[in-house]
């Protein structure tokens, strides 16, 4: 249970009485978190004068209170303090060393506030934008996998189709630079393929050559893909993500994405990154909306 009440009073508030009163109002709550601010500095030497905009201040604080109530108690208090400092219409004057001076907002207060995304628009899928299906070719690179044992290829195909996209083609190639490159070059030349996703051959062993086969084709490397892949994959496999050289780039208007061979890594990459970035409704930016412009000169 939670409650919000704001009071701005000209005389001293008794924080202990206020907290006791609050506990009486919510006797079945599991706990109460309180924050009590005090005037810093030597007793008797520092005075603080706080000015507010009556009517407007109460309204702004009500708004903050409603946003804070969507959080649990510890976070709500943290959130309120950061927003009160940077948003509520209060102006502070300090009397120290015999003079009054206005306290200016500090850069740190803005940084503290920026921690809270609450009152800022969230990135994500905007349902009122149109969904545009993307045509994706899947290449499994492996010496040992067959079509029957290709779990990562199956997983990609399933997610592509469930996501409303089109599987443009699917193939299997052994770990050989020439064969991998030839297959992908054929898809790059094919106007009915927008995106190529490969799985396998991004590791560090002598047989792992997908990166050697395809990276030379990149006209532009999308460095952030590696960064985000490792971030997402780190959540699943910890430091082991270091063993992968997953990367992405653009070649003649085709997006090439090189994923590891393990189904877990493919799942992380699709669910954590590609599902969103291949969705034309993802705001503020996604790959799909850029596709018509990739060949601009």
């Amino acid at each position, binding site marked *: 249970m939670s409650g919000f009440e704001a009071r701005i009073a000209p005389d001293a508030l008794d924080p202990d009485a206020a907290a006791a009163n609050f506990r009486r109002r919510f006797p079945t709550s599991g706990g109460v978190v309180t924050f009590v*601010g005090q005037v810093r500095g030597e007793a008797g030497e520092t005075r603080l004068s*706080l*000015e507010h*905009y009556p*009517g*407007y201040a109460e*309204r702004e604080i009500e708004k903050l209170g409603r946003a804070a109530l969507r959080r649990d108690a510890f976070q709500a208090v943290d959130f309120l303090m950061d927003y*009160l*400092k*940077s*948003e*509520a*219409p*209060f*102006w*502070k004057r300090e009397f120290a060393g015999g003079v009054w001076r*206005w*306290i*200016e*907002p500090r850069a740190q*207060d803005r940084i503290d506030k920026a921690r809270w995304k609450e009152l800022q628009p969230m990135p994500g899928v905007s349902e009122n934008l149109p969904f545009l299906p993307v045509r994706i070719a899947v290449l499994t690179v492996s010496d040992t996998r067959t079509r029957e044992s290709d779990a990562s290829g199956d997983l990609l195909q399933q997610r592509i189709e469930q996501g409303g996209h089109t599987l443009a083609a699917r193939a299997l190639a052994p770990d050989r630079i020439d064969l991998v490159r030839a297959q992908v070059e054929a898809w790059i030349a094919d106007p009915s393929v927008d995106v190529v996703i490969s799985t396998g051959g991004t590791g560090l062993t002598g047989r792992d050559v997908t990166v050697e086969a395809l990276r030379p084709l990149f006209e532009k490397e999308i460095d952030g893909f590696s960064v985000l892949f490792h971030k997402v994959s780190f959540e699943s496999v910890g430091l082991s993500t270091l063993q992968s050289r997953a990367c992405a780039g653009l070649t003649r208007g085709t997006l090439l994405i090189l994923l590891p061979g393990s189904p877990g890594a493919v799942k992380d990459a699709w669910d954590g990154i590609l599902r969103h970035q291949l969705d034309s409704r993802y705001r503020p930016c996604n790959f799909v909306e850029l596709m018509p412009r990739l060949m601009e000169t």
Partner: protein
Amino acid sequence: MVRVLFFGRLRESAGAGEKDLRLPDDVATPADLIAWLGAENAALGRALGDPSVKCVADLAIVSAQSSIRGVREIAFMPPVSGG
């Protein structure tokens, strides 16, 4: 009559926290009001014209170019400095 409020350090530039003013007809926006007040008190005009100063008309934040005709209370707020 319009009540104009000045908060924080702006109160000192204005010499008072609030003033009841009869605005001339050609004062239609906060920018006009700032120019009109600045003609009388140049230091106040400069302080109000600072881009960090927000204008609130009848308890809603307004831009410098929005209409303030018919508004009863206009407040000028310097950057807030915390509760």
